[in-house]
């Protein structure tokens, strides 16, 4: 699951193992190698917007959806991609457990038509478990482009498993898929699977074990026998129906003198699986080698030693520039619309006889904050997101990880931390969950704790708004976009540097260790479906911002208005709090209001600027607000200097994670200790960095 409104809700982090369903509903599992388009198939079948992207490891938790076909109901479970049932990362474990022991009526294995040989390995493994299997050979359009021809009938009759050729994103073959699912899930199908026969030695051992399993009434004797031979005994931890239990497995292992966790046999089995896959590919697939090299040519530039990193920075800067330029006009329009309506709202309320207090809390508090969130925060989000998704769908993110791996290795961190870091750009909570693609627990915790140093979509607009207000003061609109874009690029580079530095420090202190093993797949480049992508990501962002605005910004606005209008002595509560925070805030180049806004913004960073502005405006120096262009005026009239602007951005980049992220960290690490570290470490760094810049600024000026 990637960067969707849904994925940042806490409930989305629960993996589905026990599917709640009625007797009439059929459960269908979607499995397959990473990045074969499972989520696209899932979206097509269910009509849901599971976020898709072109990089392995994007879906790390299972998602559930439903669809009807021929008046029957189907529940479909989208599993994280896995290369094999025997590999060890957290997300793959989810798939393994569900495939081996989940309660499903059929399993659809989604394959990448352009990479069948590798994909078939998993098919063989799953086909040993169940005969209710359907192969969905996806991305058939990509295969056509690359002149890859597949003899479907030949392969089908050889494997004796139904094969459907699809292109889920174009809707090709999806009806056939539904039909095949119906057939496999509903009837008692005859078992004609052609499974891999292993070498004599292995088959002999299997045939020795099977009689014992049959005597124990174990439901899948061949599979259990093979796993007794080649797996760790943990694979039998789940007890379901007539599966071999862990105690029974231990008993058999000692009785039949089976060496536990026999890697030699596993290697033989993998080898023979792959030999069969290679044989099938040679026989039923024809490739055009020249076309295969298209990606290689692009990569020769995009991941080259010289141009790789500059191209990456340039792209980042370009995206930011487009975001800033593009957000400008909609922001103006939205803000003049919203703030133009504000007096009318007040008039209406007066007509209904509302008291000044009620009008204040609704019009200035709730409505004002909502208006700020929507007009300042929404446009940059709605532009940045589709652009970022575009790069993601293209397959660029793994190339970023490729280009930066040497830095992460030096920091003793995992190379895939780069991918979770990129996910953090959308939402840190999603980024933290994304860390599941990292196998090593030590490096996963490092990645989780440092994810916060990449500004998420809640903080981005904050930084963009301030950068635009303070660093775009020329008359040329090109420069006005370019300077803040450059500035924010530098800020993100700083965030990455701090990520690396903190990763290094953690590796040398709390989380000692050397970098663990690393394999990274560079997926083929795919042309994104631009229209659909822009549409869904704008809709997604809009829903996300609006729902957060209602849930968090509205009450925060009401509270802020209340505390700025209830007086204790001569001063409002707000002023008391601000005065209390002022000394600390001054040290780090901020003021009490800003620091307070950051504290109020713990549930959601989107509300930091709105709350801060509310606080400024309610102190009465400047209550008239017409458009976004006034932002600078408001800030300057409240004593902002370039230092305040810089440090607010730095503080926003580095400070504590939002509460959703913290809860996610608690859940993902299962440890209060790391959650506390994840809160205080960034906070300490934010204070330190801002203190240093403030001191330098004050010495110079």
């Amino acid at each position, binding site marked *: 699951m990637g960067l969707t409104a849904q994925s940042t809700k806490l409930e989305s982090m629960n993996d589905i193992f026990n599917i709640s369903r009625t007797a009439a509903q059929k459960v269908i599992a979607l499995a397959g190698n990473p990045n074969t388009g499972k989520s696209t198939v899932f979206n097509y079948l269910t009509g849901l917007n599971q976020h898709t992207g072109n990089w392995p490891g994007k879906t790390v938790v299972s998602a559930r959806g439903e669809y009807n076909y021929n008046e029957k109901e189907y529940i479909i479970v989208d599993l994280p991609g896995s*290369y*094999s049932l*025997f*590999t*060890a990362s957290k997300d793959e474990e989810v798939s393994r457990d569900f495939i081996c022991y989940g309660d499903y009526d059929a399993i659809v294995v989604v394959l990448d038509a*352009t*990479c*069948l*040989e*590798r994909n078939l*390995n998993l098919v063989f493994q799953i086909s040993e478990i169940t005969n209710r299997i359907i192969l969905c050979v996806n991305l058939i359009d990509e295969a056509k482009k690359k002149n890859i021809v597949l003899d479907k009938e030949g392969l089908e009759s050889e494997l004796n498993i139904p094969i459907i050729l699809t292109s889920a994103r174009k809707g090709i073959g999806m009806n056939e898929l539904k039909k095949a699912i119906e057939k496999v899930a509903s009837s008692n199908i005859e078992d004609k699977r052609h499974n891999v026969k292993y070498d004599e030695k292995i088959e002999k051992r299997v045939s020795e074990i099977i009689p014992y399993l049959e005597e124990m009434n174990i439901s899948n004797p061949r599979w259990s026998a093979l796993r007794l031979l080649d797996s760790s005994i943990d694979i039998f931890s789940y007890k379901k129906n007539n599966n071999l239990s862990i105690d029974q497995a231990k008993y058999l292992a000692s009785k039949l003198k089976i060496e536990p966790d026999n*890697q030699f046999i*596993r*290697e033989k089995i*993998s*080898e023979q699986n*792959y*030999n069969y*896959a*290679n044989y099938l*590919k040679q026989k039923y697939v024809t490739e055009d080698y020249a076309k295969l090299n298209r*990606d*290689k040519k692009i*990569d*020769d530039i995009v*991941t080259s*030693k010289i141009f*790789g*990193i500059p191209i990456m920075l340039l792209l980042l800067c370009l995206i930011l520039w487009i975001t800033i330029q593009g957000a400008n006009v909609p922001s103006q329009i939205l803000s003049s619309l919203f703030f133009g309506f504000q007096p009318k709202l007040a008039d209406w309320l007066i007509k209904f006889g509302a008291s000044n207090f009620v009008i204040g809390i609704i019009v200035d508090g709730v409505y004002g904050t909502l208006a700020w969130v929507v007009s300042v925060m929404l446009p940059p989000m709605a532009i940045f997101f589709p652009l970022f998704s575009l790069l993601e769908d293209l397959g660029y993110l793994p190339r970023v990880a*490729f*280009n930066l*791996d*040497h830095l992460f*290795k030096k920091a003793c961190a995992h*190379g895939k931390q780069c991918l979770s870091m990129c996910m953090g750009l959308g939402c840190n909570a999603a980024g933290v969950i994304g860390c599941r693609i990292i*196998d090593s627990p030590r490096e996963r915790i490092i990645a989780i704790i440092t994810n916060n140093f990449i500004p998420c979509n809640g903080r981005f607009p904050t930084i963009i708004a301030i950068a635009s207000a303070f660093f775009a003061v020329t008359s040329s609109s090109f420069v006005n976009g370019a300077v803040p874009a450059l500035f924010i690029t530098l800020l993100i580079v700083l965030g990455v540097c701090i990520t690396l530095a903190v990763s290094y420090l953690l590796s040398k202190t709390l989380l000692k260790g050397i970098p663990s*093993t*690393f*394999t*990274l*797949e*560079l*997926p*083929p480049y795919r042309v994104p479906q631009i229209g659909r992508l822009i549409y869904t990501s704008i809709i997604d962002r809009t829903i996300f911002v609006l729902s957060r605005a209602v849930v968090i910004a509205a009450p925060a606005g009401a509270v802020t208005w209340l505390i700025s209008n209830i007086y204790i002595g001569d001063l409002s509560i707000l002023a008391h709090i601000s005065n209390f925070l002022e000394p600390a805030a001054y040290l780090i180049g901020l003021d009490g209001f800003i620091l307070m806004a950051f504290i109020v913004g713990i549930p959601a960073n989107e509300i930091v600027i709105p709350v801060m502005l509310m606080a400024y405006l309610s102190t009465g120096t400047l209550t008239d607000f017409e458009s976004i262009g006034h932002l600078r005026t408001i800030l300057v009239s409240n004593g902002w200097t370039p230092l305040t602007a810089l440090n607010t951005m730095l503080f926003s980049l580095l400070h504590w994670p939002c509460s959703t992220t913290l809860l996610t960290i608690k859940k993902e690490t299962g440890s209060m200790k790391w959650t506390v570290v994840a809160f205080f470490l960034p906070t300490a760094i934010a204070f330190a960095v801002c203190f240093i810049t403030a001191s330098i600024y004050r010495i110079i000026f």
Partner: protein
Amino acid sequence: MKILTDANIGEIVKVGKNDAKDSLKERLLALGLTNGAKVEVLRKGPKNNLTVYRIRGAMIALRNEESRLIKIL
């Protein structure tokens, strides 16, 4: 026996022996680095840290620490 790290860019080699252990071995096997598998060396990345190989039709980047464990024929 030579190791995968020694193979030059553009060369297509065959895996002779996969000497990785435990979870890394599992992962490399899952990616198709089994005995006899054909591997094409495609490119080296920044600082010669990662090398891209074509394995079983997919492009896979490995660090030297990992490719060193693969003996080639």
